């Protein structure tokens, strides 16, 4: 049974074109790009071309690109660098709905004596620009906000945030892992100082990412060793991965408008179909400003892991914003920050589509979903007739 894969915000399939581009670097082109000889130099040349391609797609200069291993490394490097380069500034601003790559680091930094302001969001997952403006202080070293939320798809107004930060003289970093390839990003116009992305979210392989660092931004390397990446990130480059990343970014960029239209139509059909066939169901996130591929749907009085495992029986792969799947016990921090009631938060499922998602995939989910939810609701002690006795106080 071929899976109906709707978990593309977790990871994506490597595009066949990307794989084809990478294959020579697992075979005949195995030289070290830093070597002086022609054999390695050929690989170095291809790496240089990939860097130039990526820079062109993002609207920046090649020397502003640092290839990394993943989005988490890029985020960590950006935040740690901004703090290390401004030792007199001990304050960081981020949001309550960031990816753990940022949130866990922020908690760690608090333990090290930094002060962190966590901006809240409203019920649609939107930031309050006024709150951000009020949070900026003289000793604020960095504002780090994600471009688009990985769970709900809600897009933050990063251009406005970056402009505000520039006005106030504060560095700004954005975790654009979910946005790149789905949202038009032109760094020539977007005044962020640093931007992180990851290959495996846009049909490149796992284990490759990049950090954009605007020229003139104070920078301190995270990985110290050899002179690779102009001394800004030591370690022999993941050449095949970087070549694949460049190809994946090119494919995403060139087909973005067309794919977004098609994927969004599929996503909307999925959402509307579920809302129409399953009562007591809501969509999480900002309906007006959301990634075209993401649908976070919450089902009242059922639990997310149980839904996922039942869907798995039909070969449907999705993700849950609930506790049990992640190893944590609470519903997702994103949904809690948005104030999604427990009655819904525990039963939230994220469907994330890609260019490979088909009408048939959506049809199967629409056929199966009402049965799954009905089965679980029949089993549940809570329903409209017998709502829970206890009010949720958390």
């Amino acid at each position, binding site marked *: 049974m071929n899976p109906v894969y709707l978990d593309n915000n977790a990871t994506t399939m490597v595009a066949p074109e990307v794989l084809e581009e990478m294959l020579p670097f697992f075979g005949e082109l195995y030289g070290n790009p830093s070597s002086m000889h022609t054999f390695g130099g050929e690989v170095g040349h291809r790496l240089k071309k990939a860097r130039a391609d990526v820079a062109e797609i993002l609207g920046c200069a090649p020397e502003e690109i640092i290839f990394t291993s993943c989005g988490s490394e890029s985020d960590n490097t950006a935040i740690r660098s901004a703090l290390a380069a401004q030792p007199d500034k001990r304050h960081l601003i981020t949001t309550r709905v960031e990816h753990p790559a940022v949130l866990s680091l922020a908690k760690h930094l608090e333990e090290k004596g930094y002060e962190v302001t966590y901006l809240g969001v409203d019920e649609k997952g939107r930031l309050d620009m006024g709150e951000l403006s009020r949070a900026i202080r003289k000793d604020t070293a960095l504002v780090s906000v994600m471009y688009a939320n990985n769970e709900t798809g809600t897009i933050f107004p990063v251009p406005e945030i970056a402009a505000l930060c520039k006005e106030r003289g504060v560095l700004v970093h954005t975790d654009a892992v979910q946005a790149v390839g789905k949202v038009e990003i032109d760094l020539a116009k977007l005044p962020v100082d640093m931007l992180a992305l990851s290959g495996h979210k846009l049909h490149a392989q796992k284990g490759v990412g990049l950090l954009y660092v605007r020229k003139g931004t104070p920078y301190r390397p995270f990985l110290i060793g050899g002179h690779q990446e102009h001394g800004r990130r030591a370690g022999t480059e993941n050449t095949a991965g970087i070549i694949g990343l460049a190809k994946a970014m090119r494919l995403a960029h060139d087909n973005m408008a067309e794919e977004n239209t098609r994927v969004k139509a599929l996503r909307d059909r999925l959402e509307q179909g579920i809302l129409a066939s399953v009562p007591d169901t809501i969509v999480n996130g900002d309906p007006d400003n959301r990634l075209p591929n993401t649908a976070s749907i919450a089902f009242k*009085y*059922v*639990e*997310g*892991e*149980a839904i996922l*495992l*039942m869907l798995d*029986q039909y070969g449907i792969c999705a993700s849950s914003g*609930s*506790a*049990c*799947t992640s*190893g*944590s*016990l*609470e*519903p997702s921090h994103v949904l809690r920050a948005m104030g999604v009631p*427990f*009655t819904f938060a*525990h039963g939230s499922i994220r469907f994330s589509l890609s260019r490979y998602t088909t009408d048939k995939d959506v049809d199967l989910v629409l056929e199966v979903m009402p049965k799954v939810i009905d089965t679980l609701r*029949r*089993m*549940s*002690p*809570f329903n409209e007739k017998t709502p*829970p006795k*206890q009010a*949720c*106080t*958390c």
Partner: protein
Amino acid sequence: MWEYTDKVRDHFLNPRNVGSLDDANAVGEVGSLACGDALKLYLKISDAGVIEDARFQTFGCASAIASSSVLTELLKGKTIEEAKKLTNKDIADYLGGLPKEKMHCSVMGQEALEAALAGYLGEKAPEHEPEGELVCKCFGVYEGQIRRAIRENALTSVEEITDFTKAGGGCGDCQERLQAILDEERGRQADATAGAAKAPAKGLTNLERVKRVTEVMDEEIRPNLKKDGGDIELVDIEGKTVLVALRGACKGCPVSNVTLTEFVQKRLRELVEPDITVKEAGK
């Protein structure tokens, strides 16, 4: 993805005994929506004290549903006394094990059973009724539940407490308190072990046993019984059987058997020898 056994998957996908029971005469309800799992257990108990039917309604993950299903299967046909002995470990074992992070699902089954039986018998439910301070505000877990989980499952870390009770699995603010409770409980266990360790590896001689039993009776057991107007007298020791006579309020007390087994015998086992039996002389 959690690694579930085939039995867990089977009971999750094909749960037995789902739904309410109109003629139930014992109902146990634990958990809440805020906690992320809840179980309502329905039992029909015959006049002879046998569980004739059991059903459940569960809100929760796959292991919560599987644990509930197995619980109802295990209960059918059991007497109340037999059902009282059923523990969360029995549920987990029947399922071929649960991921450690999911052990609280089996605990929920045991607690629902205890609540149902206590309600049926007109007794106070055991320690999962709010007892002591509210330690974990995220999941509403009380001190009594935590101490009980530590004792009954020999837990040794805060992480294990979270696995079995969910306490500490939210904001984490209560983790220091959990560690303190764990340290206290572990201290008590160590004391009990040290007491038991007084017994030499090869066993006590008759003379040593008489001496130890007399000491424990005089120093610990009698003073405690006297607080409630009762008393006890050592009559004889035959091998490892200690014969006693109850005095004062203990004599003729309807729960004197419980006093003898749950207090007198238990303490002598902890402090003298692990296989001592206590009997009332002449019975």
